[in-house]
């Protein structure tokens, strides 16, 4: 009887435990990371009797947590992937919307600007038309600034997310280390009685951590886990957690780099963070944002360079040569700003470098690392995007020299260079920020050309001269003004006179003489073709005057043409036409793209990346869902199942109680028989 009560009691207690566990499952049906538990029953060892073994009831051997380590690992891996793609996608989408927006993009401003130039060409003396050109040009610079500002904001937002992500990761690392301790110290662990809720909690923390970075989890003694980055750098060892951090990048002070501090040592771990949310942020910055900065800057440089050149060889409404239209792309300050010395360079850090844009049409959008080795005079230039060495060599002693690259020159001006010193070369990174409008008066817009030609009234031949084409006002080698343009408002060596005389194989030669009757160009004249009077090559001396005139037809001996400054030429629209033509000219990519096409290329690149990342994210989401479902199918709580169990255990509980009641009845019956 006592045995029966005992058996009933074990049943009651056992099923109470089972009901509690089921209740707990139901209560935690929506708890993230919770794994359902079940009670493992075992029959108690029976009493041996002569007749055999009589059972003594139920014992609860274990409360088991239903979890599969492999599936948990799978969920972590997929979380890492999805975390990276989700971050990348959300950042790219922002960039995509910005660049593609009709009002936020650059293309509308470009179109309007060149349209205003076309319109101004119709009536070059009209001040309202000129005012419109100025305000549209202002619009362009504001668009560049606004886009650049948006890029900067996004860069800052990436940096904030990096610091925040690192803080979150540190909290998680700390919790994991703490949980490691709590688990290893939990009572009964030696007997295999696991602290289920602590394990769930730790798995959940590990999952959250895997959303941020790519981690490897390995089991250790005392049911602890060690966590490391995928390449092996330890994050958590037992009860000890390392600290992730961010700091200003030594290479590029506008960026942050990830660090890992462990035992007083701090390492840069940018190379190791290549997945998860933090990896996604780095990938976005390196793969989309920096190239976008560079590409936008390249368009700004090409626009400034070509507009400036064309504007400088024009003549304004007041008869002066045109000056800069946009800010100079090669001012001393800008040239120096294109080079950033690595903060870790050896003392004394006196290296002086500058980058000069030599040909905007050949300039590629990109950045480079200039790295010194050996005795500090061997250099190597590495393309940041591909990691390839694009130029290498040895600097002379003293070091003043130039490293020529397509479209730009790196000028080494002086200072000390040591092996291991690095410099970041960014030819176009800041250009969208520094572009500005220099012309500020309508009258200063150079819509005319500064030269013109006229036939002498006494000419008897039928030859005609064209109105000339400007090439340059400066000698490209010395950058000083050509002889004709040294005085404002006149052709300093002019007017030039073209005259014809007998001679040469064609029977006719021409001479161009300057105001002091010096012959500056001469040649044979062929009446059948269009004859160029000057040379187009700046290296030939006086026969290069910075302009070109052509004569066609049949001149008579003694005929004369005069080439003079375009004084009072207010109605001349030649330069306005040429400025407007730049809108469609192929000025980028070795002369294969116009400004709009260059910008469209940027939009397309970002669009493709965004679309790709959208697909990747969808795939990543599906993978994560699948692995989550697999984990859920093992560890998730199904309420119907729990309800069934509730009924099942309740029935057994009731029955066990009935067993006790029977035992009591038996006992009563026995007592009454003795009364």
């Amino acid at each position, binding site marked *: 009887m006592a045995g029966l009560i005992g058996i009933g009691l074990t049943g009651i207690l056992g099923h109470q435990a089972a009901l509690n566990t089921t209740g707990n499952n139901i209560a935690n049906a929506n708890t993230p990371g919770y794994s*359902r538990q079940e009670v493992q029953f075992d029959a108690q060892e029976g009493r041996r009797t002569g007749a055999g073994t009589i059972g003594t009831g139920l014992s609860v051997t274990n409360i088991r947590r239903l979890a599969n380590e492999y599936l948990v690992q799978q969920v972590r891996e997929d979380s890492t992937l999805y975390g990276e793609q989700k971050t990348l996608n959300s950042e790219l989408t922002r960039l995509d919307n910005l660049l593609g927006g009709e009002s936020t993009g650059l293309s509308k401003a470009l179109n309007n600007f060149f349209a205003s130039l076309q319109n101004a060409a119709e009536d070059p003396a009209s001040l309202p038309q000129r005012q419109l050109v100025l305000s549209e040009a202002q619009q362009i610079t504001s668009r560049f600034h606004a886009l650049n500002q948006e890029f900067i904001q996004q860069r800052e937002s990436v940096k904030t997310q990096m610091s925040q992500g690192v803080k979150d990761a540190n909290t998680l690392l700390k919790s994991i280390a703490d949980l490691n301790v709590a688990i290893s110290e939990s009572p009964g662990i030696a007997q295999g009685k696991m602290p289920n809720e602590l394990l769930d909690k730790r798995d959940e923390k590990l999952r959250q951590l895997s959303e941020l970075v790519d981690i490897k989890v390995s089991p250790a003694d005392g049911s602890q886990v060690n966590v490391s980055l995928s390449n092996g750098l330890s994050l958590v060892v037992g009860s000890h957690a390392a600290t992730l951090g961010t700091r200003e990048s030594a290479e590029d002070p506008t960026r942050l780099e990830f660090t890992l501090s462990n035992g007083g040592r701090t390492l840069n771990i940018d190379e190791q963070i290549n997945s998860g949310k933090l990896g996604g942020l780095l990938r976005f910055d390196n793969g989309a944002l920096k190239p976008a900065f560079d590409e936008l800057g390249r368009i700004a440089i090409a626009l400034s360079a070509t507009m400036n050149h064309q504007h400088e060889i024009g003549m304004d409404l007041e008869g002066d040569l045109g000056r800069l239209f946009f800010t100079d792309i090669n001012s001393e300050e800008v040239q120096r700003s294109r080079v950033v010395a690595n903060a870790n360079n050896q003392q004394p850090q006196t290296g002086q470098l500058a980058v000069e844009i030599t040909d905007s049409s050949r300039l590629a959008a990109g950045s480079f690392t200039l790295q010194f080795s050996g005795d500090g005079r061997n250099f190597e230039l590495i393309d940041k995007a591909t990691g390839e060495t694009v130029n290498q060599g040895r600097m002379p002693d003293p070091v003043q020299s130039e490293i020529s690259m397509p479209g730009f020159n790196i000028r080494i001006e002086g200072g000390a260079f040591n092996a291991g010193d690095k410099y970041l070369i960014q030819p176009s990174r800041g250009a969208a920020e520094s572009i500005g409008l220099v012309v500020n008066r309508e009258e200063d817009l150079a819509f005319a050309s500064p030269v013109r030609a006229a036939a002498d009234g006494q000419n008897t031949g039928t030859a005609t001269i064209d109105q000339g084409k400007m090439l340059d006002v400066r000698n490209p080698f010395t950058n000083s003004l050509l002889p004709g343009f040294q005085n404002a408002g006149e052709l300093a060596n002019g007017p030039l006179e073209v005259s014809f005389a007998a001679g040469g194989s064609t029977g006719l030669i021409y001479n161009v003489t300057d105001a002091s009757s010096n012959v500056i160009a001469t040649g044979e004249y062929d009446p059948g073709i269009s004859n160029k009077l000057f040379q187009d090559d700046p290296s030939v001396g006086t026969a290069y005057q910075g302009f070109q005139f052509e004569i066609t037809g049949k001149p008579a001996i003694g005929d004369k043409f005069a080439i003079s400054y375009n004084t009072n030429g207010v109605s001349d629209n030649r330069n306005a036409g040429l400025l407007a033509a730049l809108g469609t000219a192929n000025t980028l990519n070795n002369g294969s793209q116009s400004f709009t096409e260059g910008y469209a290329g940027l939009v397309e690149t970002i669009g493709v990346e965004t679309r790709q990342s959208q697909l990747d994210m969808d795939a990543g989401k599906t993978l994560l869902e699948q692995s989550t479902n697999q984990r859920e199918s093992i560890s998730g709580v199904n309420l119907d199942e729990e309800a069934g169990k509730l009924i099942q255990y309740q029935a057994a509980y009731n029955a066990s109680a009935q067993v006790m009641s029977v035992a009591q009845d038996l006992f009563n019956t026995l007592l009454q028989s003795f009364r």
Partner: protein
Amino acid sequence: MIRISSQQIFSGGISRLQELNASLNNTQQQISTGKRVNKPSDDPVAAARILKLDQELARIETYQRNVNLADNRLKQEESALGSSVDIVQRIRELTVQAGNGSLSANDRQSISSELKERIGQLANIANTRDASGEYVFSGFQGGTPAFSQNAAGNWEYQGDEGRRVLEIDDGVTVPISDHGKGIFVTIPAAAIGTVTTATPGNEYISGVNITDPSTLKGISTDRLEISVTSLAPSQLTVTGPGGAPITDAQGNTLPFTYSFTDGEPVEISGVEFTVSDVAVGDSFEVDTSRRQSVFNTIETLIAGLDGIDKGTAEGQAKYDDLIADSLANLDNAQESFILKQTELGGRMNAVESTKSFLEDSSVYTNEIRSELQDVDYAEAISNLSFQSFVLQAAQQSFARVSQLSLFDRL
């Protein structure tokens, strides 16, 4: 059999509903904006092409504006030239009148005074200004009047040879102005003879006339130097400038010496002239390729009407030459104007055809752009109704499934 957790039923159901909502929203956005490509990632290649087409459209719009402006300018120039033709026509009539031998000096005076009015009128037209006040015929120097009177009262060209050109389509340019020099100044003029004797006596040259332009064109010079070498027999020499021998189109050297009769026409290589009252050593020059401004022609005519004394034989000959030359020169001026008018007509035709071409390309470009960017409504609306049907079904089934619970039966 795979276990499904209750959380899966709910979270799975909810995330399906969210996906359906997202795609429904996307379709709805396409319909409400009318655009298939709302951001570059919707179709990156199309987005880049749309930017290019936008540029194309902006350019076409600018060109269309330029076409209209070019047309206006050309019309203004044409109407100025039309008036010039009328004025020169009137001057020609007056010149013909003046050639009437029975006119008295007074009659000539009154003709000359009308001519003075007309020349001012012609100068006004040559100084036509455009809407922004610039002189149309001054070349690049729109701020300077094309013609102004010098100290002697003669009209002189002040501008240059600049010509304004406007782009009306990619690579298609049309001149929208012409300099006055080409229209009013460098007009071919009748050949004239001048006395070049160092100390002139009574001799004069008259009746210079081109009888055979093709022969004249072939010879090596357009300036004949004539000098009388003897009178019995009357002989003169004809050379090019500086005494150079004259060759004809075939390269043959022409004779050096010709005989002539005083006061009778002589014809040499297509040019006819008459030398009168000559002495040995007298020299003359005949210039066959002169150019003269229309103003100069009229001024010379006025000066002749006012100043030539018809009393002498020389005066009579000069007067006759003046009238004949003036008529020829006025005809040439008219021809110059009409030639320019024809050229303007050609340009206006080109402008007109460019205009219709631009309209066509604008339509095409818009069509292509719309194909790339615009939503296909039939497709989008059928998508929308299908998606909303699916969403409704998903909502209903989710509501049903989520209500199922064994606890309700307990």
